[in-house]
């Protein structure tokens, strides 16, 4: 209708209001302002339901179901873990894109780019920490999502293929997280990935293993080519694979519906898609508000954790010539490292993980029990719990606490002042290391309480190893702190002991500590001491 006749007919104000409502309806893809008001007031929709229109009109909503069974919208049924996994993928994409702006994947630049990001880009550290925390949470939540699906038996017919795509998504998530590990090009990254790719080398027959290893690293050892390959895997190939499988997975979820709590349907039946009219919860507005609030709340929690309690590690620049003591894989591969300690590289590194993967995929076909009720599937649940406990034990065995203790003297120093990372001495810092020579036999005391604590720990640790280790007798340690340069202290650890044949042995390790150095732990309250400038002396 032309404007003028409209104004003549309805009056000016009404015409403007109608035009505004029209724009509003276009933005909301089909819901007028009045309907939004009724939604917020919690009023029931009219018939036919005017709130379904966006599902046919908007792209992003057309893949969402229009309504859910009210039982599956309860938080404790799914814990929103699938939604959260998807959301974390988007968080990783956005933070990752921002990080890419300041990053070049070459050995000459990668590490200095990290330092520049931390020290010269406003909110650069926050972005990096968020990306790292998001990656670790994604692994955790995708795994939790799988455990939940397993415990509620939701992988059973007709959802076997959904489960299969889910397993693929889990594997891709692990690889995504792992491929990102190399990019900072520090010692932690370099050696974790060297160990990881060396497992590929064990794939039989030999020529295949070597080829796979060569393809991943781009050379016999990781270098410029390997970094570029891992970068491309991380930012392009794996996200695309994940994207593809995500949509297959989600299509299947919508197609079959979220499985109901097992008590609400007969054994062997699947009524997820036959929702009685009185049990329907419509996506608009109820589920949408619920999901949005949940994700916003989760983001807030993530931001708070990142801001105050989580710092992505950055060790020394990658050095192919020196392997740091106690090199570890990322925590989600501790179990694999544990396996490698007790079994051969080929069995533990290739065959067992392969079998595990096939078993995971085959679970829906191995488990012929039609019931999803917990009391009917004792065997499945107990074997799941046992597998979980085995994983936890293997993970513990993957940490340096199990079966990789070095010589006592090396371990004593590593405990107090590790080669990489913080440790108690760097934690108390330059200010709390009074110059002098401290011999543990003399039980020295200084004016500095925190330093006294270190000296006690040094002596106690020597005594503990003396008791444990028969080759380590009459041991004592000398810690000397000297001023090497302005604002640089030299910290020398010397440990003397008698070997069983009565010969005196000596271990010497020297470290330097600069006044301005900050070392940090990955998890734990961040150090905000820089906010207050140090008091004038």
């Amino acid at each position, binding site marked *: 209708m032309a404007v003028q006749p409209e104004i003549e007919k309805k009056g000016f104000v009404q015409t403007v209001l109608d035009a505004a409502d029209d724009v509003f309806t276009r933005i909301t893809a089909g819901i007028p302002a009045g309907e939004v008001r009724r939604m*917020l007031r919690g009023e029931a929709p009219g018939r036919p339901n005017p709130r379904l229109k966006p599902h046919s009109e908007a792209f992003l909503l057309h893949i969402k179901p229009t309504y859910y069974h009210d039982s599956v919208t309860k938080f404790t049924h799914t814990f929103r873990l699938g939604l959260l996994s998807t959301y974390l993928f988007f968080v990783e994409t956005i933070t990752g894109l921002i990080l890419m702006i300041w990053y070049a994947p070459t050995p000459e630049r990668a590490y200095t780019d990290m330092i520049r990001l931390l020290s010269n880009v406003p909110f650069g550290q926050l972005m990096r920490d968020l990306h790292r925390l998001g990656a670790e949470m994604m692994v955790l939540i995708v795994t939790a999502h799988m455990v939940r699906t397993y415990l509620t038996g939701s992988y059973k017919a007709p959802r076997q293929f959904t489960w299969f795509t889910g397993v693929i998504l889990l594997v891709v998530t692990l690889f995504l997280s792992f491929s990102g590990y190399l990019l900072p090009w520090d010692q932690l990254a370099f050696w974790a990935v060297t160990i990881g790719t060396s497992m590929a080398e064990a794939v039989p027959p030999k020529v295949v293993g070597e080829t796979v290893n060569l393809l991943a690293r781009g050379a016999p050892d990781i270098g410029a080519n390997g970094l570029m390959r891992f970068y491309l895997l991380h930012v392009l190939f794996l996200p695309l694979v994940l994207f593809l499988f995500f949509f297959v997975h989600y299509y299947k979820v919508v197609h079959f519906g979220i499985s109901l709590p097992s008590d609400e349907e007969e054994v062997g039946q699947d009524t997820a898609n036959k929702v009685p009219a009185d049990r329907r919860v419509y996506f608009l507005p109820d589920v949408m508000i619920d999901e949005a609030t949940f994700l916003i709340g989760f983001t807030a929690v993530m931001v708070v954790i990142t801001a105050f309690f989580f710092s992505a590690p950055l060790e020394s620049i990658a050095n192919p010539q020196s392997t740091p003591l106690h090199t570890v894989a990322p925590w989600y591969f501790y179990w694999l490292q544990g396996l490698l300690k007790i079994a051969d590289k080929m069995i533990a590194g290739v065959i067992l993980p392969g079998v595990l993967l096939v078993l995971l995929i085959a679970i829906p076909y191995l488990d012929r029990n039609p019931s999803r009720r917990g009391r009917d599937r004792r065997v499945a649940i107990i074997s799941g719990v046992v597998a979980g406990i085995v994983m936890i034990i293997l993970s513990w065995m993957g940490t340096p606490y199990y079966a990789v203790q070095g010589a006592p003297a090396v371990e004593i120093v590593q405990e107090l002042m590790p080669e990489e990372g913080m440790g108690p001495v760097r934690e108390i810092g330059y200010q709390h290391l009074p110059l002098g020579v401290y011999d543990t036999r003399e039980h020295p005391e200084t004016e500095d309480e925190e330093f006294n604590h270190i000296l006690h720990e040094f002596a106690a640790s020597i005594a503990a190893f003396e008791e444990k280790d028969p080759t380590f007798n009459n041991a004592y340690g000398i810690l000397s702190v000297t001023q090497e340069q302005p604002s640089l202290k030299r910290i020398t650890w010397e440990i003397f002991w008698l070997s069983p044949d009565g010969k005196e042995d000596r271990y010497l390790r020297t470290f330097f500590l600069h006044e301005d*150095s900050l070392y940090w732990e990955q998890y734990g309250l961040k150090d905000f001491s*820089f906010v207050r400038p140090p008091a004038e002396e």
Partner: protein
Amino acid sequence: MKRPWYSFLYVRSPLVKIGLGILAVLVMIAVLLILGIIEERRMEAQTANWDGRGVEKGAELYANNCYTCHGIDGKGLPGVAPALHSKYFFTQRIHDVGWTGSLHDYVKLTIAAGRPSKVNTQWAQIMPTWSNRYGGPMRDDQVENLTAFVLNWEEDALAQGTPDNPDPWQPFADAPSKAVADDGSAPVAEAPVEPTGSRTPQELFGGANGMGCAGCHNLDLPQTADSRGPVGPNMANLHETAGTMVPGEDAETYVHNSIVAPNAYVHEGYMAGIMPQNFAERMSEEEINALVAWLLDPNRQR
């Protein structure tokens, strides 16, 4: 039906949910604001942190590669390598050699490319090339860290020049100092320590006022086919081999001659002219004899 204890998770009211969402957004804004306020100081602290860590790494490199010639405290060894921890080095050296760039670049390039010339220098060895760009062992970041470490002596070095804290500078033969003292006269170099006959062999070999022998000769390793000193021969088994080197010279004569006239006999695989030629002037005859006896002592005391 009894509601389970976790029923508080089943929020139904959309308004409560929206309220919670708004609260979460406000929390996020507050946290980001706090971070934004301290961001400038965080970046400063991080910059200082990474500079500091660079000095730490440089100190490790210095302790592993450089101290044998430039001294543990960087004050140089006479006849081996010049002092870096020196007021002269920080204030005058680049002017004397006509360097127009910064001291940082001078140090960095000297470390990276070495000083591969023997013209007009009194130093026993050439400065090797350290950067792997010129065939050395160090990556660029290591050269940079080492430079940061050397320059970190500045504060201490500039305080030198008092009788308690003398400048350890020894005049360079390659570029005599053009510096002018406060009263307009030519500067007085630190007088080289005159031989007094009172120095022990240990002091002469590796001490601060010694001859800097330890820079090139290792006392703990034997000189064998698979254990060769890279610059000068190792000396752990000197008492066994010294008598067999030159026909007609017994061990004492051989070692004595090697000190006062190093070019008279150069062991296969080493170059003539590396070892300083002026030890006879810098040590008294008694000192040289004591040093020879000490070097040939199978139970040599350090």
